[in-house]
Structures are given as structure tokens and as C-alpha cells.
């Protein structure tokens, strides 16, 4: 036998292999999986991995976009382009439609993060999806750091963090009653830096807003928000031009940009490696509401 040193894989290869294993497990064991696809970097990488997991066959499940109505046009265009390239079925769970039909009501602060949960759950129920692939990573946030790869949700889509199923080795238990479901997180063990290294290695195209560009912004709560149809300057807030990029892509009314000159993947990697602020801390108004904002949203059925 050759020396063991020869049989080594890099950490990115190990992460890729684990994610592909999770994708295949879900498809093999669940009846109606769907992949949550927002056009954000994590869902892009997850979709890429799905393509690899089933090649040369096509991806054997549809994708679901929870559309808050507050979108970055570049990201929507990217979503449609990927869906067309891969010949996927796209299901859109639309918050504006849910507002019109009365399923949800606009919250007082105008943020749609919380109200997208019922819209997601309604789509899951309507299409009888029993497994949802999410691109959440454990390094993103302290409540996410606690979640299983296969996360059981009751018939109300709720997560019970104090009563999670034991999850040993790579034996994932996806059993559930009708109406209950599983959220599966293939990227659980990836970090933001891993995602960017992988985007570079695989030469994955990402929406342009992830790279440095000039934008008209305002500063609010110490963060830079793009001025657009959802964010208007308030009294005392001044518009100015800045060179920025987005580290996360979420609802356009509560996702902020960061100052950056990183206009290539290599520069983004260098920037992410050197940054001292987490991606959600730097860019998400919705997480600043309280210490346990994410845990509370997840309990209600959020991704």
C-alpha cells in the first residue's frame, strides 16, 4: 500500500464531499424536497453543489424563492438566469401577494423579515414540500451554530432548540409525520471564507453586487444603505456616493453594504480574511433587534 500521506483531501474538498452527501441523503429519503434559492452567495454555492451531486442527471428538485418584494434587480436577474440555465422549476412565494390577499400584514417598522415566515410556510404547505434545503451556515450566527444538519420542524414549521434530535455520525433522521418537515443544511460546516474560496476555485459567477461598485448611499445606524425605492433618506440623512459591496444579500430594505474596493474574487477573499466584523453584524438591520432575534425567528419557522 502507498503511504497514507497520499490519501489526503483539502478542507474544501472535505466540505464539498460532506455537502454532496447531505444533498443526496435528502433526495434519497424525502418525498418532495425543494431548495431555497435567493441568489445570495450561500444559495448559489448550494445550487452548484446540487448540480455536482446529481451529475450527469439534472437537479431532481425545484427551487423556491421567498420574494419579499424588496429585491436587488441584479440578484433577481441572476436568479432567473441560473434557473433558465439549469432548466429548473422555480416556485416563488411572494410576500407582496400575501399582503394583497391578507395572509400577512405589513409590520410597523416596514421590515419584511418576520412576515416572510408565514409566506414561506404557506408555500411549503401548498406544494407539500417535506424537505427544504437552506444555505444557512453555523458560523453565521449563534442560534444557527446550534442547529442540526437535518433540523426537524413541527406542523407549524417551528424549531424547538431545546429538544433537537440527536444526530450521530452521518446518520440523518428525516422521519416525520405528514405536515411536519425537515430543513436540511448542506453548508452547515462552511465559513464565509470557505464559501469565497470555493467560489474562486470553481469559478462560480456571483451577482455583481457582491463586488465593489459605486453606489449612492446613506448612513443609518452606522451602516451604509443604498438609496433605492425601499430606502429613502430621512431628515438629516445625507446621500453620498461610496464604493461599496454587499457581504450578504437579503431583503433590500434591511441589508446594508460595506465600504470596499474588492472588485475581484481574490480581493474579496483577502477582504473577508482580514475583516473583524461578522457578515450579519456588518450588514443586517434585522439581526440588531435583540440578542435573540435569530433564535426567535427560527422558532417561528424562519430558515
Amino acid at each position: 500500500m502507498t503511504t497514507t500521506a497520499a490519501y489526503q483531501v483539502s478542507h474544501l474538498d472535505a466540505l464539498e464531499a460532506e455537502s454532496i452527501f447531505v444533498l443526496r441523503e435528502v433526495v434519497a429519503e424525502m418525498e418532495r424536497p425543494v431548495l431555497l434559492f435567493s441568489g445570495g452567495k450561500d444559495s448559489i454555492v448550494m445550487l452548484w453543489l446540487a448540480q455536482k451531486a446529481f451529475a450527469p442527471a439534472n437537479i431532481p428538485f425545484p427551487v423556491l424563492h421567498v420574494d419579499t418584494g424588496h429585491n436587488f434587480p441584479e440578484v433577481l436577474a441572476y436568479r432567473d438566469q441560473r434557473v433558465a440555465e439549469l432548466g429548473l422549476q422555480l416556485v416563488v412565494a411572494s410576500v407582496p401577494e400575501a399582503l394583497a390577499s391578507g395572509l400577512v400584514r405589513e409590520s410597523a417598522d416596514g421590515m419584511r423579515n418576520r412576515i416572510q415566515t408565514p409566506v414561506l410556510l404557506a408555500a411549503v404547505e401548498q406544494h407539500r414540500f417535506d424537505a427544504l434545503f437552506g444555505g444557512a451556515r453555523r458560523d453565521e450566527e449563534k442560534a444557527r451554530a446550534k442547529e442540526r444538519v437535518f433540523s426537524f420542524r413541527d406542523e407549524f414549521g417551528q424549531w424547538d432548540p431545546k429538544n433537537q434530535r440527536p444526530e450521530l455520525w452521518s446518520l440523518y433522521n428525516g422521519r416525520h409525520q405528514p405536515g411536519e418537515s425537515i430543513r436540511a443544511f448542506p453548508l452547515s460546516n462552511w465559513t464565509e471564507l470557505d464559501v469565497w474560496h470555493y467560489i474562486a476555485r470553481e469559478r462560480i459567477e456571483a451577482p455583481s453586487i457582491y463586488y465593489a461598485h459605486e453606489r449612492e448611499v446613506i448612513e443609518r445606524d452606522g451602516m451604509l444603505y443604498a438609496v433605492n425605492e425601499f430606502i429613502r433618506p430621512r431628515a438629516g440623512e445625507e446621500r453620498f456616493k461610496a464604493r461599496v459591496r454587499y457581504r450578504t444579500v437579503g431583503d433590500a430594505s434591511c441589508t446594508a453594504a460595506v465600504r470596499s474596493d474588492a472588485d475581484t474574487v481574490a480581493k474579496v477573499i483577502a477582504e473577508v480574511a482580514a475583516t473583524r466584523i461578522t457578515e450579519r453584524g456588518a450588514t443586517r438591520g434585522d439581526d440588531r433587534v435583540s440578542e435573540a432575534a435569530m433564535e426567535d425567528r427560527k422558532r417561528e419557522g424562519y430558515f
Partner: protein
Amino acid sequence: MTTETTAEVGAEAASARPMDLLRFATAGSVDDGKSTLIGRLLYDTRSLFTDQLAAVEAVSAARGDEYTNLALLTDGLRAEREQGITIDVAYRYFATPRRKFIIADTPGHIQYTRNMVTGASTADLALILVDARKGLVEQSRRHAFLCSLLRVPHLVLCVNKMDLVDWSREVYERIADEFTAFAAKLDVPDLTVVPVSALHGDNIVSRSEKMPWYEGPSLLHHLERVHIASDRNLVDVRFPVQYVIRPQSTTVTDYRGYAGQVASGVLKPDDEVMVLPSGFTSRIAAVETADGPVPEAFPPMSVTVRLTDEIDISRGDMICRPNNAPAVAQDIEAMVCWMDETRPLQLGGRYVIKHTTRSARAIVRGLHYRLDINSLHRDESAGELRLNEIGRVRFRTMVPLLVDEYRRNRTTGGFVVIDETTNRTVGAGMIVEAG
């Protein structure tokens, strides 16, 4: 935290040089300092982000803590912060120029032992913490025993809170000796002992000046260098078929590939293979990934195997070698750790066993004994296994499983027990023998 060093660490970590990955878990009794130690490790390797640290400082200050409670970095759930204990595993990530690390910080409280087992099951190494003032307690022994049962290949005993025993060499040596004696009765292939203070950072990232009598490396030094490459089994070819890829397409026709993750061994084109449970033999035509064929596949690669013959293979089957195959067994002897608080494991109980990519209904046919964690005494009169109890159990399965002894193969030797009425995972099994 100085900015120069931060940039240095960052720049190193950013290099695309392939790094290997070490997964480690914490273990030990409640309040022995596991979460604090992880917080310290992250802090001293400058792996923390300023907003994370600021959030933890603010919470600590608001609660009137005298110092920033670094345990809050992993105790992220509302209930954990209210109760001041860890309830479920937190996964954290950091890298040094030498390695990437995945940490599972597990709870010490006995009620949450199943979460500790979850975290330790995938670990290459476990850190067992002991409070120097208290010495070994039942829960330290239970966790050490579980680590050996799970065959975590490397153990590190951290004698913690050395600051509270005046950095005493004598205290340290007494605990180290006691633990070493206990470990000798278990199956512990590699044990290292380090005296530390998680709170103050002694011997965590760099050697402490408080304990000149200790001549070993700091904890991080050990984590960066412990040799894990030979922990894998590269001898026994085991490829559990996960999914059959058959494109329904006009461009790719007659394609049939068996997708899975290599559990052990090395697979190469032209190798003669046997497929279980059918026993048919064939040759490997190609080992493929989405990026094209590869010359060989080994753990932990996820690949697609194609064979030269058209044989009927489905999920749950296993590709191995004709002269080196797992047992095809319906009678399974295993050490079982019970994880359900509502219903104990009982003789005649019916469950589902999930093993590799195969599931089977199973009946408990025998409970040979229950183990006393402290004395390792076997109670042969036990009639059931309750929450957190460990015993040797015989199952009879409805369909054969393709199994190896757990000590030889962590993937083909481990299984979980599922209660079909609640769908909960209620037990973890490690195969001792199959017949």
C-alpha cells in the same frame, strides 16, 4: 488584540493552500469550563469578530459579571444564557496557519448527554475537562467512557481551573494519574494531559509561565500537530450506495452510476468488486465526480462508481471487495447508549435501525448487561436501559445489514435506533459482533 497580528493570521488563513481539517469536541462535567475554554481558544487565536466580542461583553456587563464571560460565545440560546449552562452542541470554526478546526462545544449536564454524544460522534479528538478543585466526578468518567465507546481516536485531558489550586503540580498529577488509571480500563488509543486555566488562558494557546514544572506543549500546539491521517481505514473497501444516478435525458443515454461517500478503503477503476447483499461481482468501470473521472477514491470523497456489468443495485447496497467484505447479518450485538427520556429500551421492543444508507425494522432480542459508568461493573440482571444508560444489546433485524465491528469501522459499525411511533432518534449503537 493588536491589529498587526490579526492581519497576519488573516492573511495566512486566506492562502488557498490546502489545509487539513481537525474536528474536535469538548467533554466533561457541568461547569468544568468547556465553553470558557473554547471562548478562550477563539479569543487568543484572534478568531473572534469585534461585534461578537462586543455583544458578549455587553451581555456580561449587563448581568454584573466581574469579567467577560467567554462561555457566552458558544452558549447562544436564550435558555442557555438564562440557566448559565450549555444545553446543546455549538459548532464553531477557526483556522491557524497549520490547520482548520471544527469545534463541537458540548453540554456537561447529564440531562443532555445525547447532545454530547452527537458532538463527539464525528470528532477526531475530544478534550475532556476536569475542574482541578473537584477532580474526576461521575460525569467526567461517563464522558471519558462515551469517548472511548465512540472511539474518538485522540483524547486530551485538560485539568482546568489550575488558578484556583495555586497552580499546584501535586493536584495536577493526582488527577492525571487517576484519569490515566481509569483510561487504562477503557479503549483509549492516545491520551495527552495538559494543565490549563481556561479563564486566564494558561497553556491554551501558549505555554504558561505559572506552571514551569509542566514541560509539555500548549493545548493549541497539540491540536495543530496531532497526527490524524492514519486514523482512517484505507484497507477495507466499503462503499454504501446512497443513490442511483440514471439521467432521463436525450443527450446522456444508458448511464447508470452509483453515488455515495467512500466509508473506507480505496476504489480504483478495474478493481474487482462485490456487491452486497446480492453477492454479485463485477469490475469498476470508472470512478467519477462532476468534474470528470478520478484515478481513485478514498474517504471522505463523494463520488459516483460505474461498473462494467449491468447488475441490480439500489440504495442500501454496499460495494466491497470479494475477499474483504462486511458481514451480512440479521443478528447484531452492539453497545447501545439510550437517549430517550420517555420510554426505556426493553426486551421485545420494536424499532427501526438506521445503518449506513439502509434502514431495517428490528426487535430487541437480548439485553446482556447494563454498565455502571463508575465501576465499569456489568449488571446482568438489568431488564431495561433508561435515558443515558449504556448496555450490550442483541437486535434481530428484518432484513440483513452489511456490518463491520465498530472498532474497525466507524461508518459501517455504527447505527442509530429510531422509535417508529415518535420518529425520534432514541439510541446509538456500536456493533461489537455480527452473526
